[in-house]
């Protein structure tokens, strides 16, 4: 039995570069395997969504039996709304407009402060500009505004966003981003991520979507300065937890874009198309140039104006689901102006204002002005009308928001607030 040698490595790094090369190779291979897997899975999802999208044009069927996994019901329904870019690209004219308009998540206006703002919500400064969907697929990128019209058609560094000699790029890969185009610096500010590299994020919480957005966007090179294959710069916006300091940062913080109010996103909410109370917009003069709505000439009208939809029984309603009734239109105006069901009409709110009973709208003093701009796809929402009304009369101030966060803090410290269950 010879003596045992216990010599140790001397002045040597613990790992050799060759070992490092091996490990980095393995890492790359694992990553590529994951990507391939992911792509296969997403291809599957988009084909499936095409199948389930077909019967959607008929009245919604709700008799699917799902006794065992009730929570799955919502999921699969939400999924059937998932958009398929290739399918959408075949649509023409007004169909396109409606279809795209339906795909965006539209925040309600903040007319009261939600509970647990600090715990459950994000806040960020909304860039002023054109809200649009940016879709990259098949080597090109298209941005469409809310009304479906094309804003830009361009190459980008988004996955599948440019035609670059690259054998590996798959035709099935695509991205959908919810953006605001900011004219001044010609930048697309990404406020939400709906699909990334063929992977749908509709069913993911805002928390996850924002995480994904922050890690993937930068990685793709889309945030780089414009170049031949990348015509516009993309940028993420700084998102904060809506606590005291986060709200303060979003409200006063310096950002490279002109602010247009603050957006509040509930962390647990999925990407829901259409109006949702789980995303809210709020603004005042300090963080927006456009607090009070302007008219076609860019001037603030002396009276608040609203756009409502005419229904077949002469009822005037908002774009909410279900719609909120604002009043009825005189039969002779309808005849005189040749109005039809579904028309979007512009009204001023008269001195009578809006009256409420138990927090519900009871009566509105509406003065008919005429048909709305043709570019409008929807009537105003209830929350928008109310927010505008409040802005003119008793606005919700930033101090109210801060106070609500503070009082929530106080409450949490108060032991007597513990709920008794015994």
């Amino acid at each position, binding site marked *: *039995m010879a*003596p045992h040698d216990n010599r140790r490595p001397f002045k040597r790094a613990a790992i050799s570069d060759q070992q490092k090369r091996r490990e980095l190779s393995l890492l790359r291979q694992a990553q590529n395997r994951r990507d391939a897997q992911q792509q296969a899975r997403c291809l599957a999802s988009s084909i499936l969504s095409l199948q389930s999208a077909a019967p959607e044009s008929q009245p919604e069927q709700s008799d699917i039996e799902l006794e065992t996994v009730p929570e799955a019901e919502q999921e699969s329904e939400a999924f059937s709304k998932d958009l398929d870019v290739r399918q959408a690209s075949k649509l023409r004219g007004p169909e396109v407009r409606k279809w795209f308009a339906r795909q965006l998540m539209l925040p309600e206006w903040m007319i009261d402060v939600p509970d647990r703002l600090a715990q459950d919500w994000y806040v960020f400064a909304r860039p002023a500009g054109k809200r649009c969907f940016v879709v990259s697929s098949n080597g090109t990128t298209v941005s469409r505004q809310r009304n479906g019209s094309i804003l830009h058609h361009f190459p980008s560094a988004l996955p599948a966003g440019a035609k670059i000699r690259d054998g590996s790029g798959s035709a099935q890969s695509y991205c959908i981003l919810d953006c605001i185009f900011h004219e001044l610096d010609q930048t697309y500010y990404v406020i939400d991520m709906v699909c990334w590299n063929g992977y749908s994020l509709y069913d993911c919480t805002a928390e*996850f979507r924002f995480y994904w957005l922050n890690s993937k966007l930068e990685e793709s090179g889309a945030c780089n300065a414009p170049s031949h294959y990348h015509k516009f710069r993309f940028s993420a916006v700084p998102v904060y937890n809506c606590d005291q300091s986060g709200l303060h940062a979003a409200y006063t913080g310096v950002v490279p874009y002109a602010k247009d109010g603050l957006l509040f996103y509930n962390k647990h909410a999925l990407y829901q198309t259409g109006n949702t109370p789980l995303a809210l917009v709020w603004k005042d003069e300090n963080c927006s140039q456009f607090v009070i709505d302007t008219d076609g000439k860019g001037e603030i009208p002396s009276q608040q104006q609203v756009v409502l939809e005419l229904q077949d029984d002469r009822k005037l309603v908002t774009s909410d689901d279900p719609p909120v009734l604002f009043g009825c239109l005189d039969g002779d105006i309808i005849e005189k102006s040749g109005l039809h069901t579904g028309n979007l009409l512009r009204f001023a709110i008269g001195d009578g204002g809006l009256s409420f009973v138990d927090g519900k709208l009871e009566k509105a003093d509406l003065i008919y002005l005429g048909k709305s701009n043709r570019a409008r796809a929807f009537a105003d929402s209830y929350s928008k009308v109310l927010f505008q009304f409040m802005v003119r009369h008793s606005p919700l101030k930033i101090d109210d928001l801060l106070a609500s966060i503070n009082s929530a803090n106080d409450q949490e410290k108060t032991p007597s607030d513990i709920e008794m269950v015994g």
Partner: protein
Amino acid sequence: MAMEVTQVLLNAQSIDGAVRKNAEDSLKQFQEQNLPVFLVSLSGELANEEKPVETRKLAGLVLKNALDAKEQHRKFELVQRWLSLDGNAKSQIKACLLTTLTSPVSDARSTASQVIAKVAGIELPHKQWPELIGSLLSNVHQLPAQAKQATLETLGYLCEEVSPDVIDQDQVNKILTAVVQGMSSSEGNTDVRLAATRALYNALGFAQANFSNDMERDYIMRVVCEATLSPEVRIRQAAFECLVSISSTYYEKLAPYIQDIFNITAKAVREDEEPVALQAIEFWSSICDEEIDILEEYGGDFTGDSDIPCFYFIKQALPALVPMLLETLLKQEEDQDQDEGAWNIAMAGGTCLGLVARTVGDDIVPLVVPFIEENISKPDWRQREAATYAFGSILEGPSPEKLIPLVNVALTFMLSALTKDPNSHVKDTTAWTLGRIFEFLHGSVVDSPIISQANCQQIITVLLQSMKDTPNVAEKACGALYFLAQGYEEMGPSSPLTPFFQEIVQSLLTVTHREDAGESRLRTAAYETLNEVVRCSTDETAPLVLQLVPVIMMELHNTLEGQKLSSDEREKQSELQGLLCGCLQVIIQKLGASEPTKYVFMQYADQIMGLFLRVFACRSATVHEEAMLAIGALAYATGADFAKYMPEFYRYLEMGLQNFEEYQVCAVTVGVVGDISRALEEKIVPYCDGIMTQLLKNLSSNQLHRSVKPPIFSCFGDIALAVGEYFEKYLMWAMSALQSAAELSTHIAGDDELVEYTNSLRNGILEAYSGIFQGFKNSPKTQLLIPYAPHILQFLDGIYMEKDMDDVVMKTAIGVLGDLADTLGSHAGSMIQQSVSSKDFLNECLSSEDLMIKESAEWAKLAISRAISV
């Protein structure tokens, strides 16, 4: 029945090659014709006191080689062969072996000891030869000293050979009693005492129960400590080796003895001969290892639980331990830096000091700083070197806040010493220390940077200058540059190294061309540093990295020119090709990662591939691992176009997959098959028959290192995903291999290493399932997979219930559940609903903190809800 073998054995040691060859052949023939008689004859030769000592020894050696081999599969065969050998023959052999233990010839005894241990290693686990230990120990006290020594030596070898669980506690007690008595100071014979001390080293692993008994442990520890004071240096050394082993095996039992051990080790370090002093230092290094592990476990686990508590021995010993170690630093040998194999007390002491720093952190700093200040500017190079080494040693462990002020003061001094100190040894250590500074205190982890725009230029100038110094100093300077570059990784679009990039690359290339670049692994260090500089480069320098491509290609081309190389030259050529392929791999990976640079790089693809193929052609039977790795990177960058290289490349791919001996090469090749599958997609079909056949063969082989098997399974998935329903051809074979591996890997019983291996095996299996399901998706042949679904769900249930999945497996497993639902649709719906734990598993993954798991789970949820709703 024994035969006369003396003459043949003598001939087998002849200096005449022909005679020797003849003898070896006849031994082989004899063995093949009649194994039992052959082995009995050998044992007879060994036992026969009338035979010459050299044939007795050789007989024993041949016998030993008939029982054991290095390669696992060969060993297995030999074990089976011995077990099935005629019982009579075995008895005769064993009798001869035991007799030999009492031989007056020491070489014969020693050989017999080793052979007995080998036989025991085979038989004891099969409950055979139960009387062995009894008969060895029966009259150990009455034996003459020589026989006693041989018996103890046999016990030592035996403990090395068999695992503790095959010997019952009663026999363990007897062995330990005999061994410890043999060690004690009352034993007058030095050889006996030495044999006993060395035997204890091997027997310590058997002494769990005895170390839990206070009285027995006290006794063992007392005897070991006494042995460290023996007048015989070999006994002192062996006794310290025992202490080292005890420090890691029984760390938690050491508290009562630690003070005494400190005194003993301190005396040995200061006064004893070097082999003893080295072991004494190693004791403290080993304690550091233990405490670092324990504290890491504390840190990683919020509960603060650890199986073993930390006794903070190092912290307590610190005020005495550190001065002792600092003293050792002054005992350097001249030219130790030129000698690759050197290991002396200064090196051991410095290494231990570094471990102490990692164990206690900030506390070490005030104890070492005065030593540095005292010695750093002394005229004696030993003092300057020791001070520098001490400084370099404590740079890992203490907090940056504590170290940065020191480094800010020292940096200028170090840079000046590296250029101006007259002593090469001091410069070597200074360059190494600079490397440690950059490794631990430079980069994004540190808040206040030690390198500013002002001194960056100076640092680089000094390092590049030092690369022209002697090979050992230049090698350390390359190392320092490596960490300097590493610290600037992820610094954003602009790196402070950009202005120097060209100059750095040029200097490194110059180093690789130095005539003496073969010494002190200088050439390797230069290429490794070049690799790191490329890895950490930014877009700004991408054009310069592109310029490097033809340069390295030319270097590689030059290695292919030489004709008729000697084996020594061939080895050097192969090593250089490895470095160059490694460098190209790093460059390909870097340039392939962004579209614009990949596009430009692609103009070289054909030529590079041509060079790689020529590198392969340099050898006849093996594949160059580095070239294979580089081809993987190239395939990824090239995509489907890689198909044009396949006709020529395929034979090397196959060769790589067949390389069981160098399993790393095999593993790397398996990974490259994955790269190629993803690059070629369905274009890989023409090669699938060959690849799949080889992979299945590899799986069923017991000669292939087990670590290659998980990647082979993952590779099934890669291929299936690439070729889709074409995989049908291999489905039955692949599924049956997967199924049996799945059964084996559901339950884990074993140590951490086995748990880790089993999880990697599970992950491979699951990745294969994922690839197969996704590959078959939307094909008319989906129903082929239905029969396999119940087993897969059972496997998922099984590993879920075991609760020992790691995060990677969890993510892959929940993904498989989704893939199964996605591909099989309604067929899967009811199976999933009926499965025991799918729902719980899904919910657990959905609420996981790990985003990768969550992401896979979201996907699975979607797929399952669809499968159920159809």
